[in-house]
């Protein structure tokens, strides 16, 4: 196991380096150059020269690249043009919101997706099964930003049960520990703040969970239908075990292995969906930070976000691979 882990971790290094290099090269081939992009079409040559000097863009490319790699490795991405804060600080503040949202959505998807897939598989061909298939089709075809808007219209505007946007009601303050409002409110033992954080998280998490929920339900159903046709399940049935025990203990245990693999694949989609969901619900996470950085041509932030997000993505995929190997002893790469 140790060697497998080490090999997988080492394989991630060139991917990370490649992604960082791609981000660096990409942002340095901005038509007209970064300085021109920041200052606009009509900027004077002197102003461009000044900003190029300020950002170190007048250095040879290899010097800039070496400096970029050093800063990427040490987590120093420079100063944001927009907020004038260190990029690392901005990312550090935004990331917990995105992690909280993604984890909540994934949890919802697992808690609802696996049982619905299991029920559909146990009653293959029934009305429940057909309903689930239709639900899955709608779930994977719905754009997350539209789902978010519909939830706001229904849950916030019409019913008034949930807040429209943000992560906490203005005025509600939780002590900063992890940066995730729900976790921090729970740690502080403040039930009012916890309730506030949870109702703020509910709609975005539901919106973001829909796609992985559909996918997980579909995968569970397919894997369980296959598992229920196996000889050992037939044996279990033949020796008189109840349908419930057969499905849960014999079928589902084997069927969950491919589901774990699917969860790993869903994480990238979750991060992408989180970018859009945060925009809909005005949550100050990584997505919100990235979109604003692009609109304001805040290149240090764009570079920083790309490196951090890809690193996170690679790490999460590594964890998913390791979990897969733990769950399924047959997997050895």
């Amino acid at each position: 196991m140790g060697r497998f882990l080490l090999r997988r971790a080492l394989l991630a290094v060139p991917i990370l380096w490649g992604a960082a290099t791609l981000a660096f090269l990409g942002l340095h081939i901005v038509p007209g150059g970064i300085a021109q992009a920041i200052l606009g079409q009509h900027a004077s040559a002197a102003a461009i020269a000044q900003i190029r000097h300020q950002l170190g863009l007048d250095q040879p490319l290899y010097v800039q690249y070496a400096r970029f790699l050093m800063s990427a490795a040490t987590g120093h991405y420079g100063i944001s043009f927009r907020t004038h804060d260190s990029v690392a600080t901005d990312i550090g503040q935004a990331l917990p919101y995105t992690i909280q949202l993604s984890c909540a959505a994934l949890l919802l998807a697992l808690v609802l997706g696996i049982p619905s897939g299991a029920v559909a598989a146990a009653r293959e061909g029934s009305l429940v099964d057909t309903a689930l298939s239709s639900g899955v089709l709608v779930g994977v075809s719905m754009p997350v930003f539209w789902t978010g808007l519909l939830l706001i219209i229904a849950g916030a505007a019409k019913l008034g049960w949930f807040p429209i946007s943000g992560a906490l009601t203005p005025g509600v303050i939780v002590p900063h520990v992890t940066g995730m409002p729900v976790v921090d409110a729970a740690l502080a033992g403040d039930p009012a703040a916890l309730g506030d954080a949870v109702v703020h998280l509910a709609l975005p998490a539901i919106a973001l969970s829909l796609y992985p929920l559909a996918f997980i339900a579909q995968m569970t159903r397919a894997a369980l239908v296959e598992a229920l046709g196996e000889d050992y399940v037939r044996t279990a049935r033949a020796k008189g075990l109840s349908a419930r025990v057969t499905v849960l203990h014999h079928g589902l245990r084997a069927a969950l292995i491919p589901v774990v693999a699917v969860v790993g694949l869903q994480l990238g989609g979750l991060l992408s969906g989180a970018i859009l969901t945060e925009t809909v619900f005005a949550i100050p996470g990584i997505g919100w930070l990235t979109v604003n950085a692009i609109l304001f041509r805040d290149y240090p932030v764009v570079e920083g976000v790309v490196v951090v997000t890809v690193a996170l993505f690679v790490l999460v995929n590594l964890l998913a691979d390791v979990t897969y190997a733990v769950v399924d002893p047959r997997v050895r790469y």
Partner: protein
Amino acid sequence: MRRSAGVLGAAILATLVLTAAFAGQLAPYHPLAQDLAHALEPPSNTHWLGTDEFGRDILSRIIAGTRIELLIGVGTVAMALVAGVAVGLYTGYYGGVVGEGLMRLMDILLAFPYLLLALMVIAILGPGLLRAMAAVSILTIPQFARLVQGLALTLRERQYVEASRAAGASGSYIVRRHLLVNMWGPIIVQATLNVGASIIAAAGLGFLGLGAQPPTPEWGAMLSTGRDYMLTSSWVATFPGLAILVTVIGFNLFGDGLRAAIGG
């Protein structure tokens, strides 16, 4: 079951294509015609799906948008398909250092969460519909490259390929006449399924204000303006989203039906 769903998908797509082709005749109003006196009117007999903040007819804008969405979906996938198939065939058949390098580049592209990669491309090129299409296209390339490489690796070991090679056929002849013709089925299925995903991705960029720009009646951009009025005039954001949903369902059903028909 899957085949009848595929037929339903084909029917949805046929309706969309006809709508796009006859958009000018079908739309009751000009998609850009403003009528501020009737701004933000709810659905009625005169405006079936209501009007937006400039009094433009939402139904007419959705009809006009069909053409743009189909162009985005098919255009981005076509660009990605050409590049991805070329990379996949090269790496799968020839391999070598160049092939290895290309596949590692694909791995790196796959290491990006897809929307982040699109956002990075937009950061480089700037916002706009064509640039958003280029961005979505780039993030779709690795999927085709992976698929085609896998197929090429299997097909090149077949006896008829070996026979052709032994008979002195050149690499490019084998790739064209033996590999490519035998992999169109899975490629077309993948392409159909990708069109829906591309439409969602491009609409997402439009929604973020980084894709199609106003007043273009692109559905994602329409949703973006609809967001500002969703508490008072929910129809502005509801119908363009519904149009995206139906379109994507159409492509997904059709792709799935195609896969069942081909036996993939």
